[in-house]
């Protein structure tokens, strides 16, 4: 096998055993790798009755066919499990340094089950996997733990670590690589915590990988690197980070303000945007493996209540979640909140969104002083958020910590009034910081994404903003952001492309420079799949449909493909004020185009079979349908 190593480790933490799983090459080709391959393995091996945090639950890490090639944005990795936040399929993507290190150690992925009897870590040392004691690390923050692991296993080792939030099984706990790169969403950190797994460490001395056409890989890397580096998006990311165009997004109605009650605040846009971050706090940039873009920020806050040593800085999502969404334009507070979340191991989107919801609920009297333990939850009071609320959430401390650690949807159900209506989520997962009222395609994308409200599971975000042009599949038209026109049709393509990106484990920023034929060529040169654009797009759709089938097995249906009222109500100010999202119209048309059953929310047997999902169709549909 090329590109892929053909070897996946099966690790049972209860039995303390490690075995190898060798899948047929055809399975790799059909499901590509990353999230697609993980979804197929999940379908085949998961116990669908098992709770997300039970020993029986699967936790998987999976590389893509390109992982390890020395090209910007090609070495991400997927994590897959059942989500403790949504109860459905969980998937998350991470860059950093762990993915190529695991590939060089000889593995495409890891499938972890069981529960260790004591805090443990998984050590992958030149291909040998052992389960080690991690008692001395349990309870430590991610920053300290990562430093300790480097001291123990060497500077060249790289790790995935959970923090106290993961140990305490907060359902939106995350996993961090090098205390900077996150498997942020869906609560993967809690899944690791439930298995008593504090960290994974990999060390590999291998330097070379096997590719189907190494000369072509070399030539393409040489050709594509300068193009990716010089692309407008890359330049903005390099100069100002992922929040580089925040002020521009603010004008287009994309940036939520005060728990989505507004999507326009000019002053906040200026105060929080990436150039302000660069001017005030940037010390240097940082990267994922082999990336020339360097969108990561290293920041330092010299003085004030949020003073901070030099270290990882906030991404766009963190800037908004702990900035405008909570009614704050204090960028120093954002830097501190992001760092605290990283150390505690909490997803900044879900944590920030849950706090913003709580601020509104407190203002409305739906959360009382009795429930907060006397801690006032006031818009923009970031000292309280940073110093009190975040640690309470991670440690599930007090009534407030317990309430907010559930995430916004469950916390709302446990609170008063109509507070569920003004959560901003789908399937229980908080929406990322892109307001669907500034781009109506987002509304559809958030609702039908298998993992819950998400802007990276499909390519809609970039297709709607004009950052994509795919003439080879007929997508060469401009979309009007504030209408439903062509959104369902685009969403079919976006679902396939998003699945390709997450299965090939490509960075959705860097791959904006690539055409679909170039992605095909890269995958073929690396893994020898023999794709053309049509078969690659078909694989993308196959993967998307499979994920929908997994959610169906978990009890999700068409009615779960929805947004909360807050996300669907017309915007109140800015250029997007008063414009209705035609949500039902978009969803109905998308269902029609995808061949979905209007109740079950999955494709009918014939459609599934046409995509090569016969076994899956047999499991779901009676023979007659």
């Amino acid at each position, binding site marked *: 096998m090329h590109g892929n190593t053909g070897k996946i480790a099966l690790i049972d933490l209860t039995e303390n055993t490690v075995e190898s799983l060798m899948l047929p090459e055809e399975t790799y080709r059909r499901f590509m790798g990353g999230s697609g391959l993980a979804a197929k393995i999940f379908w085949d091996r998961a116990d669908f009755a098992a709770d997300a945090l039970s020993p029986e639950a699967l936790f998987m890490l999976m590389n893509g066919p390109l992982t390890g090639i020395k090209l910007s944005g090609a070495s991400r990795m997927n994590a897959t499990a059942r989500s403790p936040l949504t109860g459905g399929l969980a998937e998350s993507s991470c860059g950093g340094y762990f993915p190529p290190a695991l590939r060089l150690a000889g593995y495409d992925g890891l499938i972890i089950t069981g529960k260790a009897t004591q805090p443990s870590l998984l050590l992958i040392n030149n291909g040998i996997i052992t389960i080690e004691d991690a008692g001395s690390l349990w309870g430590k923050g991610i920053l300290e733990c990562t430093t300790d692991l480097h001291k123990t296993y060497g500077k060249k080792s790289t790790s995935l670590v959970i923090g106290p939030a993961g140990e305490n099984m907060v359902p939106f706990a995350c996993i961090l690589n090098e205390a900077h790169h996150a498997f942020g969403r869906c609560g993967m950190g809690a899944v690791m915590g439930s298995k008593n797994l504090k960290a994974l460490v990999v060390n590999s001395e291998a330097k070379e990988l096997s590719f189907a056409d190494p000369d072509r890989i070399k030539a393409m890397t040489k050709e594509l690197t300068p193009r990716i580096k010089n692309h*407008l998006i890359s330049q903005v990311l390099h100069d*100002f980070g992922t929040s580089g*165009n925040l002020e*521009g997004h603010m004008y287009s109605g994309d940036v939520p303000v005060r728990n989505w009650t507004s999507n326009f605040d000019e002053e906040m*846009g200026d105060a929080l945007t990436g150039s302000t971050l660069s001017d005030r706090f940037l010390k240097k940039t940082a990267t994922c493996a082999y990336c020339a873009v360097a969108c990561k920020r290293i920041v330092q806050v010299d003085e004030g209540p949020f003073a901070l040593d030099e270290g990882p800085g906030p991404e766009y999502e963190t800037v908004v979640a702990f900035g405008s969404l909570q009614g704050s334009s204090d960028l120093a507070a954002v830097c501190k909140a992001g760092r605290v979340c990283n150390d505690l191991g909490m997803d900044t989107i879900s944590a920030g969104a849950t706090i913003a919801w709580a601020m509104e609920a407190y203002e409305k009297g739906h959360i009382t002083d009795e429930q907060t333990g006397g801690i006032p939850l006031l818009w923009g009071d970031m000292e309280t958020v940073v110093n009190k609320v975040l640690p309470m959430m991670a440690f599930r401390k007090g009534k407030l910590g317990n309430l907010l650690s559930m995430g916004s949807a469950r916390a709302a159900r446990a609170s008063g009034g109509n507070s569920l209506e003004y959560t901003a989520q789908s399937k229980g997962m908080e929406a990322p910081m892109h307001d669907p009222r500034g781009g109506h395609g987002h509304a559809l994308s958030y609702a039908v994404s298998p993992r819950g409200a998400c802007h990276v599971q499909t390519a809609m975000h970039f297709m709607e903003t*004009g950052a*994509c*042009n795919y003439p080879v599949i007929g997508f060469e038209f401009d979309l009007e952001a504030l209408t439903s026109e062509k959104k369902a049709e685009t969403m079919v393509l976006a679902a396939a492309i998003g699945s390709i990106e997450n299965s090939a484990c490509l960075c959705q920023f860097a791959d904006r420079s690539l055409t679909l034929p170039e992605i095909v060529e890269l995958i073929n040169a690396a893994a020898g799949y023999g794709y053309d654009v049509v078969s690659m797009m078909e694989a993308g759709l196959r993967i998307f449909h499979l994920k929908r089938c997994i959610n169906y097995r978990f009890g999700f249906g068409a009615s779960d493909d929805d947004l909360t009222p807050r996300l669907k109500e017309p915007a109140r100010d800015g250029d997007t004020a008063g414009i209705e999202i035609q949500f039902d119209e978009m969803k109905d048309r998308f269902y029609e185009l995808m061949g979905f059953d209007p109740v079950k929310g999955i494709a009918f047997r014939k459609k599934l079979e046409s995509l090569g999902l016969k076994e899956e169709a047999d499991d779901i549909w009676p023979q007659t349908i």
Partner: protein
Amino acid sequence: MNMSQYYKDAEDLYKIYGYFLDRVLRDDKIGLKMSKAGIIIKFMYTDPDAEITIDLKNPPSKEGYYGTVYMGPCNVKEDVWSKQPADHSHRFWHGLENPIAGITKGIIKQGGKVTAMLKLLPVIKPAFQLFPVALKEMGLESLIVTKK
């Protein structure tokens, strides 16, 4: 051969943009915000071929303005340049073209400090309302483009 729907020739383009940019660079909100960019931008057009340079870096040559405009080739060295068909620019100033899509499709070419120019996009958005007003004031209502 000039293929423009809106401009007879470069002189025609300079006349229209001269009037419009005069308004923009005197505008206390838009002009002031533009001046904070502190850059020199060269807009190059095709069909008809033309060049406009806006200096937001040096002190304005005229009182009451937040920048200086040069119509036609000049010796002022730009920090960033952008090249596009004049008709595309005409629709852009009506708020009818997505500049990101224009760049993605290669309709707009750019060079230099492009991130600095990108930061101007939200700043100039209010000027989209001024452009049709300027055309009307010039008696050129027929050049006003409406959304299809």
